[in-house]
C-alpha cells in the first residue's frame, strides 16, 4: 500500500513538474486557444546516459554528512595539525588563525568593537564535520585537493582545538569527529520568511 502510494506521488510530482516546463501550451490548449501539439508522449525512460559503476562513484563521492557518513579511515590530533597548519595554511589565515589576510578561522579575543562580529569555526559553525569536508575539498586555496585524509583529520583537530572545542590530545577519526559539540548549533533556525507582506 505504502509502495503504491509513493509510486503515485512520484508520478504525480513528475507529471506536475513536466507540466511546469511546457511553456504553457497545455494551459493554452485547455483554454481552447491553440491546437494540441502532435508531440509524442514521453517514454518511461529515454535510455540516454549509462549506468554509473560503484568504483567511479566512490572516486568522486567526497561529501561528509553531519552524522559522519562519508568520513574516511585515518585519524589525527591537534599537535600534528599545528605543524601542518604552520606550513600550509598560516600564510593566508595567520599564525594563529586570527590574523588573516584571508578568513578568520579562530574566534580568539572578540572584546574589541571591530572583532565583535567575528564569525569563526568556534562561534558560528554548527557541525565539526563541515570543517573536514571543506578543508579536504577546497584548501589550501592555491593547492586544493592536495591534502591526505590524515592531514585533514590533524588540521581539523588543530582548528577545533584552537577554537577551544577539543583537547590538544583528542584523537579525531570517523567515530569521534561527528561527536564534537559545536556551541553555535543551537542558534541555527530554518528560514521563516514566507510569501506575503511580512518583512523578516
Amino acid at each position, binding site marked *: 500500500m505504502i509502495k503504491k502510494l509513493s509510486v503515485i506521488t512520484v508520478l504525480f510530482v513528475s507529471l*506536475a*513538474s513536466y507540466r511546469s*516546463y511546457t*511553456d504553457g501550451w497545455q494551459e493554452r490548449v485547455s483554454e481552447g486557444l491553440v491546437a494540441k501539439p502532435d508531440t509524442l508522449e514521453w517514454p518511461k525512460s529515454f535510455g540516454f546516459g549509462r549506468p554509473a559503476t560503484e568504483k567511479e562513484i566512490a572516486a*568522486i*563521492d567526497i561529501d561528509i554528512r553531519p552524522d559522519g557518513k562519508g568520513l574516511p579511515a585515518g585519524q589525527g590530533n591537534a599537535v600534528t595539525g599545528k605543524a601542518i597548519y604552520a606550513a600550509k595554511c598560516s600564510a593566508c589565515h595567520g599564525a594563529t588563525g586570527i590574523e588573516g589576510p584571508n578568513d578568520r578561522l579562530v574566534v580568539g579575543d572578540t572584546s574589541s568593537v571591530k572583532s565583535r562580529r567575528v564569525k569563526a569555526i568556534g562561534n558560528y559553525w554548527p557541525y565539526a564535520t563541515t570543517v573536514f569536508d571543506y578543508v579536504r*575539498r577546497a584548501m589550501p586555496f592555491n593547492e586544493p*585537493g592536495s591534502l591526505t585524509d590524515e592531514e585533514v583529520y590533524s588540521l581539523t583537530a588543530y582548528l577545533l582545538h584552537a577554537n577551544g572545542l577539543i583537547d590538544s590530545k583528542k584523537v579525531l577519526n570517523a567515530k569521534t569527529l561527528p561527536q564534537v559539540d559545536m556551541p553555535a548549533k543551537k542558534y541555527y533556525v530554518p*528560514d521563516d520568511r514566507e510569501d506575503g507582506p511580512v*518583512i523578516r
Partner: protein
Amino acid sequence: MMEIQKDNKFSRRKLLGGAATAAVVLVQTASGKAFQAGMTHKEIEDTTKIQGVLPGTLGTRSDFEKPVKAPSPTSSRTPLQDLYGTITPSDLHYERHHGGVPAIDPSKYELVIHGMVDKPMVFTLADLKRFPSVSRIAFLECSGNYRGANDGKIRPQDICGLTSQSEWTGVALSTLFREVGVSSKATWFLAEGGDAAVMTRSVPMTKGWKDAIIAYAQNGEAVRPEQGYPARLFLPGWEGNTSVKWIRRIEVSDQPYMTREETSKYTESVGPAKIRQFSFTMDTRSIITYPSYPASVEKGWIEIRGIAWSGRGKIVRVEVSTNAGKSWQLAALQDPVLDKSITAFRYLWNWDGEPTEIMSRAIDETGYVQPFLKQLLEARGGNMGYHFNPVTAWYLQKDGKVLFKAT
C-alpha cells in the same frame, strides 16, 4: 573556436584601429579581396562616402561602447546603469565563484546522479542535450548583494550588481530524476561543482522536481565559462549560490549535508541569538538605474527608469516616489512581466530643479512590498548580511548631480 576568436581580435584591431587619430577602412577590390587602407579620422567622418566593414564571423560591440563589469577578488558586478531592457549580455553577467573559473573540456564532461535512486547514472553533455529541453528567462542574484556608501558616490553596479538575467536552456532536472528513478523517500539532494572549490549546496527535492534546470545554454549559445560551462544547475528565484556551476555530481539524500556554503556562509544572523539557514528565496527588489550615480541630469523632463524582480513570482506593481517617500506614483511596467524575472519599469517626471530624493519600491504577486533599510534592520535585530533588498534612494542636487542615499 580559438581560431575564430584570434581571428576576430586580429581583424578588429586592424579594422577599427587602436590609435585615435588614424582609422582604417576596408576597400573592396575588383577581385573581391578586401584590403585595408589607412585614413585620418577627419577623412572618414562622412560614413556615406566610405564603404563599410564587410560581414564577419563574430559580431562586435561598437568601439564607442565600453560597458564593463566591476571585478574584485571574489566577484564581478554587472553594470546595471549602462544596460537597457531586461536581458544581461552574457559577457556582462555577474560572476561569483569560490575557486576561480575552471576550464572544462566538454568532451570529457560528465554529470553523475547517484544516492537514493534506482539507477545511478552518468550523463555526458551530448546525453543531456538529447533529452527534451526547456527554456526560461529568469534572473540570477547573489544573496550577498547590498552595499551603500556614506558619500553617496556609488553606482547601481556597486550597490546591487550581483544580479543579472538570461534566457537559460537545458534539461529539466525532473526529467533526469525520472530517468534515474529517484526514491520517494528522498527529501534533499547535494549539488557539487567541478571547480577548484568543488562547491556544494544541499537543495530540497521539491525545488528539484518543480523548476530546476541543468542548463547548458545561456542567451542562445553555450553557457559561458564564468557561468558554469559546460553545464550548471539553475534554480529560478533562489539565491545564486544554490545554482551550482560546472555541476559534476548530484547525490540524492534524505537530509541536508550542512556544507560550508550553507553554514559558515549564506546564513544570516537575525536578532541576538538566531542564525537563519536555508534562506533560499530572493526577496522582492527594485532599483532606479536612471538617473543614478554617476549621471547628471537637467531640470525638465526625465524618464525615470529601473528594474524590479522577485524570487517569489511576478512583479505586479512598482511605485516611484519623487519626494523622498512622502507620496508614491505607479510606474509603467514593460511587457513581458515574467515569473521570477527582471521587469523593466518607467515613470515620466518633470523635475522642477529643486533638490529632492527619488526612489522605487516593488510589490510582487504575493503582496510583498520591498522594505526600507530601516525596516530590514529592525526585522533582523540590527544585523546586516545576506538577503538585503532595501529601497534605494537617489538624491538629486541642485546642480543635477545624483548621489546614492540609504533608506
